[in-house]
Every structure is written in structure tokens, then in C-alpha cells.
């Protein structure tokens, strides 16, 4: 029962949780008194096990949660000693904890494994306050079932180990692909170099057929070298962290467009519409995206056609969409998803060279910048490639 006086307790004064007529008595010298039957309702209904022991280790009170924790029968636990409730091994741990408690008003804590006479061991945390009351010392112990917390802790530990393992694997893979490609480039240089020397040495004497063979050796070496570089670029997109910041797309695109890749094709006409909008991105990644899109736009034209490329940006909600449209051969509907995958290419005239990784780099780089990439196209109608990136916040 809570009295009316307590309910109307003026603010600023702490309302007592004690019941009127509580048997608890303050002991001089700061020594805590036994909480006795004080908030009985809370003691009984508390979700964690709570028990009062007298100095001799007899159960003087306990709550429902304690009974449930140790799986005690109502009759059994109604009275008697605590030692009868738990298994011998965990009793020793328990008593060691009690011996460590002092009559100074502080709460001592310990983590032990508690095993009931019949049940299995449960990891628990003990919070014990020693008190003096009715002529003898006693203990008020709150027992918190730690199994759930331990399980969560183990899970967390497991996740942490997995993460470390994954990070290791990723960095191993990165260093592996790097070392592999580094080591592969050196024999390619030798193949290319010696083939060129042979070609120079036999300029006057070799047949056209021999020269063509040498040409194939050299173009294969160059292709393999380009392939390795693209694989390296693609795998470097996997790096753990990408720093995203404001990028002046206008400057970036214009400087790339000024030096279009030399593809032996007639010089392309590149038109940039207005001032391109700035975006949130990574300059290195964006450079790769734009130069790949631009070189594709110029590369994939029908023979004899002068490439015409148009570039513009538009705002799409929280994003800016960069468009690169061309007058190229176009891409059939069924190929449009495929071309963004590594090593996937459409059927093109043989003379169009490429590694098959360029658009995979574009998409992956866009995604690493929290954006996306795609295409709108019809065969014979040219293509409109786009990347969408987060808009610069004003």
C-alpha cells in the first residue's frame, strides 16, 4: 500500500519506495540493514532471481524467478539451506563469492556457473549486498541469468572472427591478383619486345605471311596486357573503403573528352551540353567510368561512320544522371544486361578491340559510389549509357 502522503510527494523530494510500516531499520554507522519484507511485490515479481540468505546460509526468502532458475519445487525450496539447492561444485564458487563480500554497504559482483541439483549449469552474474539485521548478518543476492548475454557475446565474437577472416581473404585476393598480374606483364613485355625486334630484323626478307604472324603475336601481347590492366582496375574497385566527396563532373568530363583515346577511327565529334552538374563521388572511379563510356561510345560505330557523342546531365531526385549517347551500332535488348558483366561482350565486328571488362568497371565503380549504371539502346539506333550518382547537397 502506498499512502496518500507519498503520492503527493512534492517534486524535488525523493519519494520513498518503502512501504509504510516497513520493518527495515537504519543501522548506525552506515551498515545496511536487512531490506526485510520491503517492496515485497517487486521482490517477488522481479524478472531476475533474488534471494535472501542468513549468515548460516539458510534461505530466508526468495522469489519466483529464483525458484524457476534452479528448478526448485515449491515444497522443497520453501525452507532449508541454500546448499541443498545447488550442486557441490557450483556451491564452492558461490561460497567463495560470499566470503568476498563485506559489510560496507557495497554490492559485490561475480560471474559464476550455477548448477542446480538436477538441472544443467547456467552462467550467472551475482550481485550481493551484505546486511545486518535482527542480530545477525545476511546476504541479499540478485542472480542474473547470463546465458543469453553469453550467447550474444559468443555470436558477436564469432561475427568478429568471420569479419577478420573475410578482410584477410579480400586483402589476400587483392595482393594475389596484383602480384599475379605484375608478374604476368613481364613475360608479355618480352613477347612483345622480341616480336618487334624480329619484325624489324626481317622487314626486307620475310614474306607477308610471316609478317602477319608476327603482327598477330604483337597484337595478342598488347591485348593480354590491356586485359591484365583492366582486371587490375576492376579488382581495385573492391577496396574496403571508398572515400566519397564532391566531384566537379564538368571539369572531369571536359578534360577526358579533350583527349579521346586514339582508336584509329576518324576523329570523333564530342558535344558536351551546357555545364555538367557536380556529384558526390570518387574522382579516380569517375575518371574510369567516364573514359570507359567515352571510349565505348567512340569505338562501337559502324565502319566508315564518324562517331558523334553527346554528353549531358540531369537531376533525378537525390541523384544526378550523366548521359553519354552515341551514334554507334546499338545493343539488342537481350544483350543489355549482359554487357555490364565481366568478360561479356556483344557480337561485334572482329576489328573492334576490347577486353570485355570496361562496362563491368563502370557499373561496379558507380555502385561503389552509391550509384548505378545502365543503358538505353536499340540496334542501329545508337546507345545512351548513363550513370547515376548522388547529387551534391547544397
Amino acid at each position, binding site marked *: 500500500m502506498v499512502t496518500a502522503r507519498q503520492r503527493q510527494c512534492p517534486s524535488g523530494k525523493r519519494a520513498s519506495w518503502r512501504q509504510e510500516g516497513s520493518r527495515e531499520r537504519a543501522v548506525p554507522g552506515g551498515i545496511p540493514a536487512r531490506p526485510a519484507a520491503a517492496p515485497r511485490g517487486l521482490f517477488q515479481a522481479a524478472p531476475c532471481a533474488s534471494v535472501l540468505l542468513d549468515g548460516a546460509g539458510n534461505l530466508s526468502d526468495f522469489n519466483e524467478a529464483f525458484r524457476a532458475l534452479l528448478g526448485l519445487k515449491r515444497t522443497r525450496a520453501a525452507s532449508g539451506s541454500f546448499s541443498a539447492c545447488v550442486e557441490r561444485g557450483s556451491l564452492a564458487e558461490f561460497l567463495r563469492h560470499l566470503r568476498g563480500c563485506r559489510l560496507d554497504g557495497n554490492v559485490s559482483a561475480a560471474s559464476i556457473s550455477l548448477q542446480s541439483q538436477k538441472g544443467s549449469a547456467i552462467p550467472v552474474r551475482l550481485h550481493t549486498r551484505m546486511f545486518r539485521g535482527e542480530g545477525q548478518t545476511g546476504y541479499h543476492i540478485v542472480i542474473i541469468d547470463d546465458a543469453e548475454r553469453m550467447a550474444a557475446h559468443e555470436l558477436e565474437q564469432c561475427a568478429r572472427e568471420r569479419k577478420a577472416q573475410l578482410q584477410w581473404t579480400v586483402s589476400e585476393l587483392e595482393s594475389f591478383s596484383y602480384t599475379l598480374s605484375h608478374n604476368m606483364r613481364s613475360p608479355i613485355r618480352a613477347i612483345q*619486345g622480341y616480336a618487334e625486334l624480329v619484325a624489324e630484323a626481317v622487314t626486307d626478307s620475310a614474306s607477308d605471311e610471316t609478317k602477319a604472324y608476327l603482327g598477330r603475336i604483337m597484337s595478342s601481347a598488347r591485348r593480354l596486357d590491356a586485359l591484365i590492366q583492366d582486371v587490375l582496375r576492376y579488382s581495385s574497385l573492391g577496396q574496403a573503403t571508398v572515400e566519397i566527396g564532391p566531384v566537379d563532373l564538368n571539369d572531369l568530363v571536359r578534360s577526358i573528352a579533350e583527349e579521346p583515346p586514339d582508336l584509329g577511327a576518324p576523329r570523333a565529334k564530342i558535344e558536351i551540353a551546357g555545364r555538367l552538374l557536380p556529384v558526390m563521388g570518387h574522382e579516380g572511379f569517375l575518371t574510369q567510368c567516364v573514359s570507359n563510356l567515352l571510349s565505348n561510345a567512340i569505338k562501337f560505330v559502324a565502319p566508315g561512320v564518324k562517331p558523334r557523342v553527346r554528353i549531358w546531365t540531369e537531376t533525378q531526385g537525390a541523384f544526378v544522371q550523366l548521359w553519354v549517347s552515341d551514334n554507334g551500332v546499338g545493343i539488342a535488348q537481350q544483350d543489355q544486361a549482359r554487357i555490364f558483366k565481366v568478360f561479356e561482350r556483344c557480337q561485334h565486328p572482329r576489328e573492334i578491340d576490347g577486353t570485355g571488362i570496361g562496362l563491368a568497371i563502370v557499373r561496379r565503380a558507380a555502385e561503389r559510389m552509391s550509384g548505378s549504371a545502365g543503358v538505353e539502346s536499340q540496334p542501329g539506333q545508337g546507345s545512351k549509357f548513363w550513370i547515376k550518382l548522388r547529387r551534391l547537397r547544397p
Partner: protein
Amino acid sequence: MKTNSDGLILVVEDNEDDVFFLKMAFEDAHIVNPVHVVSDGEAAIRYLAGEGEFGDRKKYPLPALMLLDLKLPRCPGLDLLRWVQERKVLGFPAIVFTSSSYAADIKAAYAAGVASFVVKPLTVEERRHFAGLIRDYWLGCNMVPPRL
């Protein structure tokens, strides 16, 4: 003061093919400077320190330019660069000449005091172009302290 045009070029490279192509490119670019090749990082350190077989400074002068690969036997290129950096008195530019264009390598090389970072060219034409730039800038314009 004089330009380096007659200074020695120290090449630290273990790949014989690359040494062959480089020497050929130097020849094509009419570079007449003496070239000394060592094939690992430790030998490069001995050379620069004037130790062991490289004790005679007249025969093995300090270079006007060092070209080094990063992947080297015994002592990696970056360790060699750091060794050079700690002995600032040596006073010559080091150019990394490697297959790697790995950002971490480029950053580490500059942190270790490299003057320039070049990815090895693939074709004869590109190599000739590179050798021409070495001749015109690093041997023609760039200054190093006079060698005794």
C-alpha cells in the same frame, strides 16, 4: 656546376629482358652515359655505399640517376629507396621503373623519396620515347652535385 650529361646511370633490375630492352632504348635515344646494372637491392646498396666489390669510386662513381624496379631479389626496391633516403648526402634522383601501377606502391615510393614513377612501357616505340625523355630531362636538365 655542370649538367649530368656524362654521369653514370645505375640500373637496378633483375629481369634480363628488361635490361636488354632498356639498354637498346638508351642506344636508340643516343644516350652515351655509362650504365651500370646490378640485379638486386643489396648489390645496389653495396654499390651506393662503395663497399665490397664496389670499393673503387673512380670505377664505380655515384650515379647521376638511378632506375630501379620495385620487385627485386634480396632487398625490395622500397627498402632500397628508404636506405637512400636516410643518407641524403648521396644526392641523385631515383626513378621507379616497374610493371606496377598499384596506388599503394606509387604512394609508398614517393614517401620513400622517389623523384619519378614510371610504368614499364610495352612496345619498342614507347620505350624509345621514355629513353628520349630521360636523355632530355633527367640527363639534360636535371642537376646533381658534382662528383669528385
